[in-house]
């Protein structure tokens, strides 16, 4: 997620770094603060440098904070982040943001790295009565597949646009939503991803009878 923020920063040392699939990285550092699953932190390369916001991609009780990001070639921060190694220092803000989950029945819908806040909620014990609908271009981009599939079974839906496999919906998330004969208007619908996906998915949900006040969106801008 792009955007600066105004909070003070403090240094953390990277204790984990892995390229999960081409251009998509997961980094981690020791957790020394409390947060709510779904919140974001600001990350900078130096104390007074530009900061960008990223959703936390780990559980509230876990020892490490994990951050999932995709390298944007023309971006400011992600190319630098991807060059870091374990032991290197980055600067982070306190957690913030209100895109937080709860135990109510809900549908979590995301594309790309928009899965991060939902994985955090999942790892924080909020997966019961949830259905997860994720969209990616390639199958290898469905990170955390084993965990989601094991716990959620049929309530874990993968929508893939460039490849196909058994049990995978061949198309975009919005196409999947459009094809649903009915959507439960009593559920909450969480959306996370690009503006295009969020706006289109929200329109589809509303057109299928979901009240807009049941839809909670976070846009990666």
């Amino acid at each position, binding site marked *: 997620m792009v955007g600066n923020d*105004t909070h003070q920063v403090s240094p953390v040392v990277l204790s984990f770094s892995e390229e999960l699939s081409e251009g998509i990285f997961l980094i981690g550092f020791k957790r020394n603060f409390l947060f709510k699953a779904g919140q*974001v932190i600001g990350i900078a390369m130096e104390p007074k440098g530009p900061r960008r916001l990223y959703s936390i991609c780990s559980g509230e009780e876990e020892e490490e904070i994990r951050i999932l990001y995709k390298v944007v070639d023309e971006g400011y921060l992600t190319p630098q982040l991807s060059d870091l190694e374990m032991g290197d220092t980055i600067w982070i803000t306190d957690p913030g943001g209100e895109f937080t989950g709860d135990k109510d029945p809900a549908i979590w819908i995301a594309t790309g790295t928009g899965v991060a806040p939902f994985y955090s909620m999942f790892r924080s014990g909020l997966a019961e009565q949830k259905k997860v609908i994720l969209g990616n271009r390639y199958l290898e981009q469905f990170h955390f597949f084993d965990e989601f599939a094991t716990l959620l079974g049929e309530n874990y839906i993968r929508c893939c646009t460039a490849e196909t496999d058994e049990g995978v919906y061949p198309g975009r998330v919005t196409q999947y939503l459009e094809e649903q004969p009915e959507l439960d208007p009593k559920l909450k619908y969480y959306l996370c991803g*690009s*503006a295009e996906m969020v*706006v289109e998915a929200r329109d589809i949900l509303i057109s299928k009878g979901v009240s807009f006040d049941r839809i909670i*969106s976070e*846009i990666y801008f």
Partner: protein
Amino acid sequence: MQEKLFGKTLEELKAISLDLGLPSFTGKQLCEWLYKKEATSFEQMTNLSLKARVLLSENYNLGLQEPEDEQESVDGTKKYLFPTGIGKFIETAYIPDGKRSTVCVSSQVGCKMGCLFCMTGKQGFQGNLTAGEILNQYRSLPERKNLTNIVYMGMGEPLDNLSEVLQSLEVLTAEWGFALSPRRITVSTIGITPAMLEFLNKSEAHLAISLHTPFDEERRKLMPVQQVYPLKEVLKEIRSWDFGRQRRVSFEYILFKDYNDSSAHVNELSRILHGIRCRINLIRFHPIPGTPLESPAESAIEEFRNKLNAKGITATIRASRGQDIWAACGLLSTKRLQKN
């Protein structure tokens, strides 16, 4: 493609001149021609040497662009469609109102913010405008000579394109530029807090903040930005900022029937804005295709205003303009996008 000169700062134009082997003062002369004498070709720049004009025209173009389409409302409001460098279109509105004439400029092609009530958001984000493309909407407006005010309230979130918006403001207000008073300019934002602070630091223009409801839960359903930049943090920064006597902060409030038009909203607005010298602009909602939101009755809007005024908050109802041409909603450019 040749680089465009229009929209560049004095320093940039000096640097370009030096790069071409021309004297540094050519940069100042270019400013005069671009922003004061309103040249439309290098040939008109008669105080530049022939060599300078040839070199400039071989390497640069002026970057001025006439509108490609135009719609006029019965109330005199006009909406222009300008092509951009990335092959897309932006809308610019001209709003005459007695002695006051305002141009409403776009800062992005499309928008990333995804507000529920906004048509521009439905076309997604196509790209940022350059400072030159923002300024061209002012410079190439056929009614430019009538203009008294400029508002950055067209397509896009201005503070999501901060560097180009700041550069355009510099050109508009600098002595070497259009030399307009910053008090004639208002930049609107949905409240990207860090960029807002940088804007407040680096510009003297007025600030307008899209508020739309004082309640966090409601606001996050209307405006996804609330998830990461909550209104309370925006107001905290505004409260601590010294706006001085001349600079103004205002809040935009679109009224939605039975959603944000109750007495509870008036009371909460009064509470959260306490101590901030400001004005609230109440705006009638003009429903866009497929929206679940509705516009309240005229009487409800007036009642809401009266209740705010009774609480000591200056609130005015913005006159609806250009309704018959959808002057404020991004529909014209969305249609052109679909057509292409």
